[in-house]
Protein backbone atom coordinates (compact mmCIF):
# COMPACT_ATOMS: atom_id res chain seq x y z
CA UNK A 1 0.00 0.00 0.00
CA UNK A 2 1.48 3.32 -1.07
CA UNK A 3 1.51 6.26 1.34
CA UNK A 4 -1.05 8.09 -0.79
CA UNK A 5 -3.52 5.18 -0.66
CA UNK A 6 -2.81 4.71 3.01
CA UNK A 7 -3.65 8.37 3.66
CA UNK A 8 -6.88 7.96 1.65
CA UNK A 9 -7.87 4.80 3.53
CA UNK A 10 -7.21 6.44 6.91
CA UNK A 11 -9.23 9.52 5.88
CA UNK A 12 -12.12 7.36 4.62
CA UNK A 13 -12.16 5.31 7.86
CA UNK A 14 -12.20 8.55 9.84
CA UNK A 15 -15.08 9.84 7.71
CA UNK A 16 -17.03 6.63 8.42
CA UNK A 17 -16.47 7.02 12.17
CA UNK A 18 -17.50 10.69 11.99
CA UNK A 19 -20.66 9.92 10.02
CA UNK A 20 -21.61 7.17 12.48
CA UNK A 21 -20.81 9.37 15.46
CA UNK A 22 -22.62 12.48 14.24
CA UNK A 23 -25.80 10.65 13.20
CA UNK A 24 -27.82 8.08 15.11
CA UNK A 25 -26.36 5.29 12.97
CA UNK A 26 -23.90 4.49 15.77
CA UNK A 27 -26.77 3.58 18.13
CA UNK A 28 -27.38 0.48 16.03
CA UNK A 29 -23.94 -0.77 17.05
CA UNK A 30 -22.78 0.93 20.25
CA UNK A 31 -24.04 2.47 23.47
CA UNK A 32 -24.61 6.23 23.27
CA UNK A 33 -21.85 6.76 25.86
CA UNK A 34 -19.34 5.78 23.15
CA UNK A 35 -20.43 8.68 20.91
CA UNK A 36 -17.80 11.29 22.00
CA UNK A 37 -14.99 8.75 21.67
CA UNK A 38 -16.14 7.67 18.22
CA UNK A 39 -16.33 11.32 17.09
CA UNK A 40 -12.89 12.05 18.54
CA UNK A 41 -11.43 9.00 16.80
CA UNK A 42 -13.03 10.15 13.54
CA UNK A 43 -11.61 13.66 13.89
CA UNK A 44 -8.17 12.26 14.71
CA UNK A 45 -8.15 9.90 11.71
CA UNK A 46 -9.41 12.53 9.27
CA UNK A 47 -6.84 15.04 10.57
CA UNK A 48 -3.98 12.53 10.24
CA UNK A 49 -5.20 11.36 6.84
CA UNK A 50 -5.60 14.87 5.42
CA UNK A 51 -2.24 15.97 6.87
CA UNK A 52 -0.46 13.10 5.13
CA UNK A 53 -2.46 13.64 1.90
CA UNK A 54 -1.26 17.24 1.79
CA UNK A 55 2.28 16.15 2.70
CA UNK A 56 2.33 13.50 -0.04
CA UNK A 57 1.16 16.00 -2.63
CA UNK A 58 3.67 18.66 -1.58
CA UNK A 59 6.85 16.61 -1.63
CA UNK A 60 6.39 13.47 -3.67
CA UNK A 61 9.90 12.17 -3.15
CA UNK A 62 10.89 8.98 -4.94
CA UNK A 63 12.27 7.36 -1.78
CA UNK A 64 9.34 8.38 0.38
CA UNK A 65 7.67 4.98 0.24
CA UNK A 66 10.68 3.22 1.68
CA UNK A 67 11.34 5.77 4.36
CA UNK A 68 7.89 5.67 5.98
CA UNK A 69 7.30 1.93 5.54
CA UNK A 70 4.70 0.46 3.24
CA UNK A 71 2.04 -0.36 5.86
CA UNK A 72 1.62 -3.68 4.07
CA UNK A 73 -1.07 -4.84 1.67
CA UNK A 74 -3.18 -5.63 4.75
CA UNK A 75 -4.06 -1.93 4.99
CA UNK A 76 -6.36 -2.36 1.99
CA UNK A 77 -8.71 -4.30 4.27
CA UNK A 78 -9.59 -0.96 5.88
CA UNK A 79 -12.02 -0.39 3.01
CA UNK A 80 -14.05 -3.46 4.14
CA UNK A 81 -16.16 -1.65 6.79
CA UNK A 82 -16.91 1.10 4.28
CA UNK A 83 -17.96 -1.41 1.62
CA UNK A 84 -20.14 -3.23 4.17
CA UNK A 85 -21.89 -0.06 5.35
CA UNK A 86 -22.62 0.87 1.73
CA UNK A 87 -23.70 -2.67 0.85
CA UNK A 88 -25.88 -3.47 3.87
CA UNK A 89 -26.73 -0.01 5.18
CA UNK A 90 -26.70 0.54 8.92
CA UNK A 91 -28.77 -2.22 10.54
CA UNK A 92 -29.60 -3.02 14.14
CA UNK A 93 -29.72 -6.65 15.25
CA UNK A 94 -32.94 -8.32 14.11
CA UNK A 95 -34.80 -11.57 14.65
CA UNK A 96 -31.82 -13.72 13.62
CA UNK A 97 -30.30 -13.95 17.11
CA UNK A 98 -33.50 -14.15 19.18
CA UNK A 99 -33.30 -17.20 21.42
CA UNK A 100 -34.63 -18.61 24.69
CA UNK A 101 -35.04 -16.89 28.04
CA UNK A 102 -32.16 -14.71 29.28
CA UNK A 103 -30.33 -16.05 32.31
CA UNK A 104 -27.99 -14.70 34.96
CA UNK A 105 -28.81 -11.00 34.66
CA UNK A 106 -27.39 -8.89 37.50
CA UNK A 107 -29.64 -8.48 40.52
CA UNK A 108 -32.24 -5.80 40.26
CA UNK A 109 -32.86 -2.94 42.67
CA UNK A 110 -35.57 -1.02 40.85
CA UNK A 111 -38.97 -0.41 42.44
CA UNK A 112 -41.49 -0.46 39.59
CA UNK A 113 -44.43 0.73 41.75
CA UNK A 114 -42.45 3.72 43.03
CA UNK A 115 -41.32 4.56 39.50
CA UNK A 116 -44.92 4.32 38.26
CA UNK A 117 -46.14 6.67 41.01
CA UNK A 118 -43.50 9.28 40.16
CA UNK A 119 -44.13 9.09 36.39
CA UNK A 120 -46.72 11.32 34.76
CA UNK A 121 -48.30 8.67 32.57
CA UNK A 122 -51.26 6.66 33.72
CA UNK A 123 -49.57 3.52 32.42
CA UNK A 124 -45.82 3.47 33.23
CA UNK A 125 -43.31 3.05 30.39
CA UNK A 126 -40.89 0.25 31.24
CA UNK A 127 -38.08 -1.63 29.56
CA UNK A 128 -38.47 -5.32 28.80
CA UNK A 129 -35.53 -5.81 31.17
CA UNK A 130 -37.66 -4.35 33.99
CA UNK A 131 -40.30 -7.00 33.44
CA UNK A 132 -37.85 -9.90 33.15
CA UNK A 133 -35.68 -8.83 36.07
CA UNK A 134 -38.52 -7.49 38.19
CA UNK A 135 -40.89 -10.45 37.84
CA UNK A 136 -38.98 -12.86 40.11
CA UNK A 137 -39.11 -10.29 42.93
CA UNK A 138 -42.23 -10.22 45.13
CA UNK A 139 -43.18 -6.51 45.26
CA UNK A 140 -42.53 -5.94 41.57
CA UNK A 141 -44.38 -9.11 40.60
CA UNK A 142 -47.43 -8.01 42.60
CA UNK A 143 -47.43 -4.70 40.77
CA UNK A 144 -47.02 -6.30 37.34
CA UNK A 145 -49.86 -8.78 38.02
CA UNK A 146 -52.28 -5.99 38.90
CA UNK A 147 -51.32 -3.14 36.55
CA UNK A 148 -50.93 -2.56 32.84
CA UNK A 149 -47.44 -1.48 31.72
CA UNK A 150 -46.15 -0.10 28.42
CA UNK A 151 -42.98 -1.04 26.56
CA UNK A 152 -41.62 -1.26 23.03
CA UNK A 153 -39.89 -4.01 21.09
CA UNK A 154 -39.95 -5.88 17.79
CA UNK A 155 -42.33 -8.72 17.05
CA UNK A 156 -41.07 -12.17 16.14
CA UNK A 157 -42.23 -15.76 16.01
CA UNK A 158 -38.96 -17.48 16.77
CA UNK A 159 -40.54 -19.60 19.50
CA UNK A 160 -44.10 -20.81 19.00
CA UNK A 161 -46.27 -19.77 21.92
CA UNK A 162 -49.68 -20.77 20.64
CA UNK A 163 -52.29 -19.18 18.36
CA UNK A 164 -52.97 -15.45 18.83
CA UNK A 165 -49.58 -15.23 20.51
CA UNK A 166 -46.30 -13.64 19.53
CA UNK A 167 -42.98 -12.68 21.05
CA UNK A 168 -41.75 -9.13 21.68
CA UNK A 169 -37.97 -8.74 21.93
CA UNK A 170 -35.37 -6.08 22.53
CA UNK A 171 -31.65 -6.65 22.87
CA UNK A 172 -29.74 -5.71 26.00
CA UNK A 173 -26.24 -4.46 25.28
CA UNK A 174 -23.54 -3.65 27.80
CA UNK A 175 -20.84 -2.41 25.40
CA UNK A 176 -21.65 -3.06 21.75
CA UNK A 177 -24.00 -5.15 19.63
CA UNK A 178 -21.48 -8.01 19.69
CA UNK A 179 -22.35 -8.69 23.34
CA UNK A 180 -26.14 -8.39 22.91
CA UNK A 181 -28.49 -10.57 24.95
CA UNK A 182 -32.07 -10.93 23.61
CA UNK A 183 -34.76 -10.06 26.18
CA UNK A 184 -38.18 -11.40 25.22
CA UNK A 185 -41.71 -11.54 26.59
CA UNK A 186 -44.42 -13.82 25.25
CA UNK A 187 -47.68 -12.03 24.45
CA UNK A 188 -51.06 -13.76 24.23
CA UNK A 189 -54.65 -12.71 23.72
CA UNK A 190 -54.02 -10.74 20.53
CA UNK A 191 -56.91 -10.36 18.09
CA UNK A 192 -54.49 -9.69 15.26
CA UNK A 193 -50.88 -10.83 15.32
CA UNK A 194 -48.40 -8.22 13.98
CA UNK A 195 -45.93 -9.08 11.25
CA UNK A 196 -42.45 -10.42 11.88
CA UNK A 197 -39.88 -7.66 12.59
CA UNK A 198 -42.54 -4.99 13.17
CA UNK A 199 -41.71 -2.64 16.07
CA UNK A 200 -44.69 -2.05 18.36
CA UNK A 201 -45.59 0.08 21.36
CA UNK A 202 -47.56 -2.33 23.54
CA UNK A 203 -49.61 -2.14 26.74
CA UNK A 204 -49.89 -5.49 28.52
CA UNK A 205 -50.22 -7.17 31.92
CA UNK A 206 -48.20 -10.00 33.44
CA UNK A 207 -49.96 -13.38 33.63
CA UNK A 208 -49.32 -16.30 35.92
CA UNK A 209 -47.68 -19.11 33.95
CA UNK A 210 -50.38 -21.73 33.20
CA UNK A 211 -49.78 -25.35 34.17
CA UNK A 212 -50.06 -26.31 30.54
CA UNK A 213 -47.18 -23.99 29.63
CA UNK A 214 -45.18 -25.09 26.61
CA UNK A 215 -41.70 -26.44 27.33
CA UNK A 216 -38.78 -24.06 27.96
CA UNK A 217 -37.54 -24.32 24.39
CA UNK A 218 -40.57 -22.59 22.94
CA UNK A 219 -41.48 -20.40 25.89
CA UNK A 220 -39.60 -17.11 25.75
CA UNK A 221 -39.60 -15.07 28.95
CA UNK A 222 -42.60 -13.95 31.03
CA UNK A 223 -46.13 -14.42 29.70
CA UNK A 224 -48.24 -11.25 29.27
CA UNK A 225 -51.77 -10.54 28.07
CA UNK A 226 -52.05 -7.71 25.59
CA UNK A 227 -54.38 -4.78 26.30
CA UNK A 228 -53.54 -2.82 23.15
CA UNK A 229 -50.65 -2.18 20.81
CA UNK A 230 -49.73 0.11 17.93
CA UNK A 231 -47.05 -0.26 15.26
CA UNK A 232 -44.16 2.20 15.48
CA UNK A 233 -40.95 2.91 13.57
CA UNK A 234 -37.73 1.35 14.81
CA UNK A 235 -36.50 3.75 17.54
CA UNK A 236 -33.22 5.64 17.14
CA UNK A 237 -31.79 3.72 20.06
CA UNK A 238 -32.92 0.13 19.37
CA UNK A 239 -31.19 -1.46 22.39
CA UNK A 240 -31.84 -1.55 26.12
CA UNK A 241 -29.23 -1.13 28.83
CA UNK A 242 -29.21 -2.31 32.43
CA UNK A 243 -30.80 -0.03 35.03
CA UNK A 244 -27.92 -0.79 37.38
CA UNK A 245 -25.17 0.56 35.08
Amino acid at each position, binding site marked *: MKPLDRARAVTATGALALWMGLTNAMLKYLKSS*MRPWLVLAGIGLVA*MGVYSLIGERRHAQPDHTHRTGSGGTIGWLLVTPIVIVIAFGANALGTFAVSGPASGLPSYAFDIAQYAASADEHVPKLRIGDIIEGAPERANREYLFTHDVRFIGFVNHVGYAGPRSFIVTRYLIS*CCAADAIPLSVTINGATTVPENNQWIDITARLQPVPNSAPPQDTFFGPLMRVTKYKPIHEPDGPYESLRSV
Partner: protein
Amino acid sequence: MTVAAVSGGDTEAPERKRRNVAGIVWANLALFFLYQESVHRFLAYSGLRHWSTIFLATMLQALPFLVLGVVVGAAISAFVPAVALARALPKRSILAVPVAGLAGALLPGCECSAAPVTNRLVSRGVEPAVALTFLLAAPAINPIVVVATAVAFPNHPEMVWARFIASLATAIIVGLIWSRVAGRKWIRFTTDDHDHGHRLDAFVATATNDFAQAGGFLVVGASLVATMQTVVPAHFLRSLGGSGFAAILTMACLAVLLSVCSEADAFVAAGLIQFSLTARLAFLVVGPMIDLKLIALQIAVFGRAFAARFAPLVFIIAILSSIVVGAVLL
Protein backbone atom coordinates in the same frame (compact mmCIF):
# COMPACT_ATOMS: atom_id res chain seq x y z
CA MET B 1 14.37 -2.89 -30.05
CA THR B 2 11.80 -5.52 -29.10
CA VAL B 3 14.14 -6.81 -26.43
CA ALA B 4 14.52 -3.36 -24.94
CA ALA B 5 10.75 -2.82 -24.85
CA VAL B 6 10.17 -6.14 -23.09
CA SER B 7 12.78 -5.55 -20.43
CA GLY B 8 11.45 -2.04 -19.86
CA GLY B 9 7.94 -3.45 -19.42
CA ASP B 10 9.21 -5.95 -16.87
CA THR B 11 10.44 -3.33 -14.45
CA GLU B 12 7.34 -1.19 -14.83
CA ALA B 13 4.80 -4.01 -14.58
CA PRO B 14 4.53 -4.34 -10.78
CA GLU B 15 4.20 -0.57 -10.43
CA ARG B 16 1.43 -0.40 -13.04
CA LYS B 17 -0.31 -3.43 -11.54
CA ARG B 18 -0.35 -1.81 -8.13
CA ARG B 19 -1.80 1.37 -9.60
CA ASN B 20 -4.50 -0.72 -11.36
CA VAL B 21 -5.50 -2.47 -8.11
CA ALA B 22 -5.82 0.90 -6.39
CA GLY B 23 -7.94 2.22 -9.25
CA ILE B 24 -10.25 -0.82 -9.19
CA VAL B 25 -10.81 -0.56 -5.42
CA TRP B 26 -11.68 3.14 -5.50
CA ALA B 27 -13.88 2.78 -8.61
CA ASN B 28 -15.83 -0.11 -7.07
CA LEU B 29 -16.37 1.87 -3.93
CA ALA B 30 -17.87 4.73 -5.94
CA LEU B 31 -20.07 2.31 -7.92
CA PHE B 32 -21.35 0.66 -4.75
CA PHE B 33 -22.21 4.05 -3.33
CA LEU B 34 -24.29 4.97 -6.40
CA TYR B 35 -26.26 1.70 -6.49
CA GLN B 36 -26.63 1.05 -2.78
CA GLU B 37 -30.45 0.81 -2.85
CA SER B 38 -30.51 -2.28 -5.06
CA VAL B 39 -27.53 -3.82 -3.26
CA HIS B 40 -29.39 -3.51 0.08
CA ARG B 41 -32.36 -5.46 -1.28
CA PHE B 42 -30.05 -8.15 -2.60
CA LEU B 43 -28.29 -8.60 0.73
CA ALA B 44 -31.35 -8.44 2.98
CA TYR B 45 -30.89 -12.10 3.99
CA SER B 46 -30.89 -11.94 7.77
CA GLY B 47 -27.86 -14.13 8.48
CA LEU B 48 -25.63 -11.93 6.36
CA ARG B 49 -27.17 -8.84 7.89
CA HIS B 50 -26.57 -10.18 11.37
CA TRP B 51 -22.96 -10.81 10.36
CA SER B 52 -22.61 -7.23 9.12
CA THR B 53 -24.02 -5.80 12.37
CA ILE B 54 -21.69 -7.85 14.58
CA PHE B 55 -18.72 -7.05 12.32
CA LEU B 56 -19.35 -3.29 12.34
CA ALA B 57 -20.12 -3.26 16.07
CA THR B 58 -16.80 -4.96 16.82
CA MET B 59 -14.92 -2.60 14.48
CA LEU B 60 -16.56 0.57 15.80
CA GLN B 61 -16.16 -0.48 19.41
CA ALA B 62 -12.45 -1.14 18.91
CA LEU B 63 -11.78 1.89 16.68
CA PRO B 64 -11.48 4.65 19.33
CA PHE B 65 -9.25 2.42 21.45
CA LEU B 66 -7.09 1.52 18.47
CA VAL B 67 -6.73 5.21 17.56
CA LEU B 68 -5.82 6.01 21.17
CA GLY B 69 -3.20 3.25 21.16
CA VAL B 70 -1.76 4.32 17.81
CA VAL B 71 -1.59 7.99 18.87
CA VAL B 72 0.03 7.23 22.26
CA GLY B 73 2.46 4.86 20.54
CA ALA B 74 3.36 7.39 17.84
CA ALA B 75 3.78 10.11 20.48
CA ILE B 76 6.21 7.91 22.41
CA SER B 77 8.05 7.23 19.19
CA ALA B 78 8.22 10.85 18.00
CA PHE B 79 8.53 12.88 21.19
CA VAL B 80 10.08 10.70 23.93
CA PRO B 81 13.89 10.41 23.72
CA ALA B 82 15.05 6.83 23.22
CA VAL B 83 16.99 6.63 26.48
CA ALA B 84 14.35 8.19 28.76
CA LEU B 85 12.10 5.13 29.04
CA ALA B 86 14.88 2.64 29.58
CA ARG B 87 16.23 4.89 32.34
CA ALA B 88 12.81 5.23 34.03
CA LEU B 89 12.34 1.47 34.47
CA PRO B 90 14.29 -0.72 36.92
CA LYS B 91 17.36 -2.27 35.28
CA ARG B 92 16.71 -5.88 36.26
CA SER B 93 13.77 -7.49 34.53
CA ILE B 94 12.74 -9.33 37.71
CA LEU B 95 11.83 -5.88 39.10
CA ALA B 96 10.84 -4.18 35.86
CA VAL B 97 8.25 -6.83 34.92
CA PRO B 98 5.99 -6.34 38.00
CA VAL B 99 6.32 -2.55 37.67
CA ALA B 100 5.17 -2.79 34.04
CA GLY B 101 2.26 -5.01 35.12
CA LEU B 102 0.99 -2.45 37.59
CA ALA B 103 1.57 0.34 35.06
CA GLY B 104 -1.01 -1.43 32.90
CA ALA B 105 -3.67 0.09 35.13
CA LEU B 106 -2.72 3.50 33.71
CA LEU B 107 -4.02 2.81 30.21
CA PRO B 108 -7.79 2.74 30.54
CA GLY B 109 -9.94 1.07 27.97
CA CYS B 110 -9.99 -2.01 25.85
CA GLU B 111 -7.30 -4.41 24.79
CA CYS B 112 -7.02 -2.86 21.33
CA SER B 113 -4.99 0.13 22.58
CA ALA B 114 -2.24 -1.93 24.10
CA ALA B 115 -0.58 -3.61 21.08
CA PRO B 116 0.49 -0.43 19.19
CA VAL B 117 1.73 1.18 22.42
CA THR B 118 3.74 -1.94 23.29
CA ASN B 119 5.30 -1.98 19.82
CA ARG B 120 6.55 1.59 20.22
CA LEU B 121 7.78 0.93 23.75
CA VAL B 122 9.94 -1.90 22.42
CA SER B 123 11.21 0.24 19.56
CA ARG B 124 12.20 2.88 22.15
CA GLY B 125 14.47 0.41 23.90
CA VAL B 126 12.19 -1.17 26.54
CA GLU B 127 12.93 -4.88 26.99
CA PRO B 128 10.26 -6.94 25.12
CA ALA B 129 9.31 -9.03 28.18
CA VAL B 130 8.66 -5.85 30.17
CA ALA B 131 6.57 -4.25 27.42
CA LEU B 132 4.61 -7.49 26.93
CA THR B 133 3.73 -7.61 30.63
CA PHE B 134 2.21 -4.17 30.15
CA LEU B 135 0.37 -5.45 27.05
CA LEU B 136 -1.26 -8.29 29.02
CA ALA B 137 -2.05 -6.38 32.21
CA ALA B 138 -3.45 -3.13 30.72
CA PRO B 139 -6.83 -4.39 29.45
CA ALA B 140 -7.54 -6.66 32.43
CA ILE B 141 -6.83 -4.56 35.51
CA ASN B 142 -7.79 -1.00 34.58
CA PRO B 143 -10.50 0.79 36.64
CA ILE B 144 -13.23 0.61 33.97
CA VAL B 145 -12.95 -3.17 33.73
CA VAL B 146 -12.85 -3.56 37.53
CA VAL B 147 -16.09 -1.57 37.90
CA ALA B 148 -17.80 -3.48 35.05
CA THR B 149 -16.88 -6.77 36.72
CA ALA B 150 -18.27 -5.59 40.08
CA VAL B 151 -21.56 -4.58 38.42
CA ALA B 152 -21.89 -7.86 36.54
CA PHE B 153 -21.23 -10.04 39.62
CA PRO B 154 -23.11 -8.24 42.44
CA ASN B 155 -23.51 -11.48 44.39
CA HIS B 156 -19.86 -12.47 44.04
CA PRO B 157 -17.70 -9.46 44.96
CA GLU B 158 -14.77 -11.86 45.34
CA MET B 159 -14.87 -12.24 41.53
CA VAL B 160 -13.43 -8.72 41.17
CA TRP B 161 -10.41 -9.59 43.31
CA ALA B 162 -9.99 -12.98 41.72
CA ARG B 163 -9.96 -11.42 38.25
CA PHE B 164 -7.52 -8.69 39.25
CA ILE B 165 -5.08 -11.04 40.95
CA ALA B 166 -5.26 -13.83 38.36
CA SER B 167 -4.78 -11.37 35.48
CA LEU B 168 -1.87 -9.55 37.09
CA ALA B 169 -0.26 -12.88 38.03
CA THR B 170 -0.62 -14.16 34.46
CA ALA B 171 0.93 -10.98 33.03
CA ILE B 172 3.89 -11.09 35.42
CA ILE B 173 4.54 -14.83 35.07
CA VAL B 174 4.42 -14.63 31.26
CA GLY B 175 6.74 -11.60 31.42
CA LEU B 176 9.27 -13.40 33.59
CA ILE B 177 9.20 -16.56 31.45
CA TRP B 178 9.56 -14.47 28.28
CA SER B 179 12.54 -12.54 29.65
CA ARG B 180 14.28 -15.84 30.52
CA VAL B 181 13.49 -17.82 27.40
CA ALA B 182 12.99 -15.38 24.57
CA GLY B 183 14.84 -12.14 25.27
CA ARG B 184 14.68 -10.15 22.02
CA LYS B 185 14.16 -13.24 19.85
CA TRP B 186 11.06 -13.82 17.64
CA ILE B 187 9.51 -10.45 18.27
CA ARG B 188 9.46 -8.15 15.27
CA PHE B 189 9.23 -4.49 16.08
CA THR B 190 9.49 -1.32 14.08
CA THR B 191 12.83 0.41 14.26
CA ASP B 192 12.55 4.14 14.69
CA ASP B 193 14.53 6.53 12.56
CA HIS B 194 12.65 9.60 13.67
CA ASP B 195 15.27 11.13 15.91
CA HIS B 196 16.13 13.50 13.09
CA GLY B 197 13.77 15.54 10.96
CA HIS B 198 10.37 17.07 11.48
CA ARG B 199 8.67 15.80 14.66
CA LEU B 200 5.05 16.30 13.56
CA ASP B 201 5.70 14.63 10.18
CA ALA B 202 7.26 11.69 12.00
CA PHE B 203 4.33 11.50 14.40
CA VAL B 204 1.68 11.46 11.64
CA ALA B 205 3.66 9.04 9.46
CA THR B 206 4.07 6.62 12.37
CA ALA B 207 0.44 6.91 13.43
CA THR B 208 -1.07 6.41 9.94
CA ASN B 209 1.31 3.54 9.21
CA ASP B 210 0.51 1.76 12.51
CA PHE B 211 -3.21 2.41 12.06
CA ALA B 212 -3.33 1.03 8.51
CA GLN B 213 -1.48 -2.11 9.60
CA ALA B 214 -3.32 -2.79 12.86
CA GLY B 215 -6.66 -1.68 11.39
CA GLY B 216 -6.27 -4.14 8.52
CA PHE B 217 -5.72 -7.01 10.94
CA LEU B 218 -8.58 -5.77 13.12
CA VAL B 219 -10.82 -6.25 10.06
CA VAL B 220 -9.65 -9.88 9.88
CA GLY B 221 -10.30 -10.35 13.62
CA ALA B 222 -13.74 -8.70 13.51
CA SER B 223 -14.75 -10.89 10.52
CA LEU B 224 -13.83 -14.01 12.48
CA VAL B 225 -15.77 -12.79 15.52
CA ALA B 226 -18.84 -12.02 13.41
CA THR B 227 -18.63 -15.40 11.66
CA MET B 228 -18.35 -17.21 15.00
CA GLN B 229 -21.36 -15.38 16.42
CA THR B 230 -23.44 -15.97 13.28
CA VAL B 231 -22.58 -19.63 12.75
CA VAL B 232 -22.66 -20.77 16.39
CA PRO B 233 -26.19 -20.18 17.65
CA ALA B 234 -26.73 -18.74 21.14
CA HIS B 235 -28.69 -21.76 22.35
CA PHE B 236 -25.67 -23.93 21.57
CA LEU B 237 -23.69 -21.90 24.12
CA ARG B 238 -26.44 -22.44 26.67
CA SER B 239 -26.37 -26.17 26.04
CA LEU B 240 -22.67 -26.30 26.95
CA GLY B 241 -21.85 -26.75 30.56
CA GLY B 242 -20.23 -29.10 32.97
CA SER B 243 -17.76 -28.78 35.77
CA GLY B 244 -14.15 -29.36 36.63
CA PHE B 245 -11.32 -28.93 34.17
CA ALA B 246 -13.45 -29.54 31.08
CA ALA B 247 -15.63 -26.55 31.96
CA ILE B 248 -12.59 -24.34 32.54
CA LEU B 249 -11.08 -25.34 29.20
CA THR B 250 -14.41 -24.80 27.42
CA MET B 251 -14.77 -21.30 28.85
CA ALA B 252 -11.15 -20.42 28.02
CA CYS B 253 -11.71 -21.50 24.41
CA LEU B 254 -15.00 -19.59 24.29
CA ALA B 255 -13.16 -16.45 25.43
CA VAL B 256 -10.74 -16.82 22.52
CA LEU B 257 -13.48 -17.48 19.95
CA LEU B 258 -16.11 -14.95 21.05
CA SER B 259 -13.60 -12.08 21.48
CA VAL B 260 -15.88 -9.92 23.60
CA CYS B 261 -14.39 -6.57 24.61
CA SER B 262 -12.85 -6.58 28.10
CA GLU B 263 -15.33 -3.94 29.26
CA ALA B 264 -18.28 -6.18 28.39
CA ASP B 265 -17.03 -9.72 28.90
CA ALA B 266 -18.05 -9.76 32.58
CA PHE B 267 -21.70 -9.40 31.55
CA VAL B 268 -21.40 -12.30 29.13
CA ALA B 269 -19.69 -14.46 31.76
CA ALA B 270 -22.32 -13.55 34.34
CA GLY B 271 -24.99 -14.91 32.00
CA LEU B 272 -23.33 -18.31 31.54
CA ILE B 273 -24.53 -19.51 34.94
CA GLN B 274 -24.27 -23.20 34.09
CA PHE B 275 -20.48 -22.90 34.42
CA SER B 276 -18.59 -22.87 37.71
CA LEU B 277 -17.23 -19.56 39.01
CA THR B 278 -13.66 -20.74 38.35
CA ALA B 279 -14.55 -21.55 34.74
CA ARG B 280 -16.05 -18.07 34.35
CA LEU B 281 -12.93 -16.60 35.95
CA ALA B 282 -10.86 -18.34 33.26
CA PHE B 283 -13.11 -16.70 30.64
CA LEU B 284 -12.42 -13.26 32.17
CA VAL B 285 -8.67 -13.80 32.49
CA VAL B 286 -8.07 -15.32 29.04
CA GLY B 287 -10.37 -13.02 27.03
CA PRO B 288 -8.58 -9.66 27.41
CA MET B 289 -5.16 -11.26 26.83
CA ILE B 290 -5.70 -13.58 23.93
CA ASP B 291 -8.62 -13.80 21.52
CA LEU B 292 -9.20 -13.88 17.77
CA LYS B 293 -8.94 -10.14 17.22
CA LEU B 294 -5.96 -9.80 19.57
CA ILE B 295 -4.08 -12.63 17.86
CA ALA B 296 -4.72 -10.81 14.56
CA LEU B 297 -3.43 -7.55 16.07
CA GLN B 298 -0.38 -9.27 17.56
CA ILE B 299 0.49 -10.85 14.21
CA ALA B 300 0.14 -7.38 12.67
CA VAL B 301 2.39 -5.68 15.17
CA PHE B 302 4.93 -8.31 16.26
CA GLY B 303 4.90 -10.89 13.45
CA ARG B 304 3.83 -14.53 13.02
CA ALA B 305 6.83 -16.15 14.69
CA PHE B 306 6.04 -14.17 17.81
CA ALA B 307 2.30 -14.84 17.90
CA ALA B 308 2.78 -18.59 17.35
CA ARG B 309 4.76 -18.80 20.62
CA PHE B 310 3.24 -16.02 22.68
CA ALA B 311 -0.46 -16.92 22.26
CA PRO B 312 -0.19 -20.57 23.51
CA LEU B 313 2.05 -19.52 26.40
CA VAL B 314 -0.42 -16.88 27.57
CA PHE B 315 -3.35 -19.26 27.11
CA ILE B 316 -1.77 -21.95 29.32
CA ILE B 317 -0.53 -19.58 32.05
CA ALA B 318 -3.89 -17.79 32.17
CA ILE B 319 -5.75 -21.09 32.69
CA LEU B 320 -3.30 -22.25 35.39
CA SER B 321 -3.46 -18.99 37.27
CA SER B 322 -7.29 -18.99 37.07
CA ILE B 323 -7.36 -22.49 38.56
CA VAL B 324 -5.04 -21.53 41.44
CA VAL B 325 -6.74 -18.22 42.22
CA GLY B 326 -10.18 -19.81 41.80
CA ALA B 327 -9.30 -22.56 44.28
CA VAL B 328 -8.19 -20.01 46.88
CA LEU B 329 -10.72 -17.21 46.43
CA LEU B 330 -13.90 -18.57 44.85
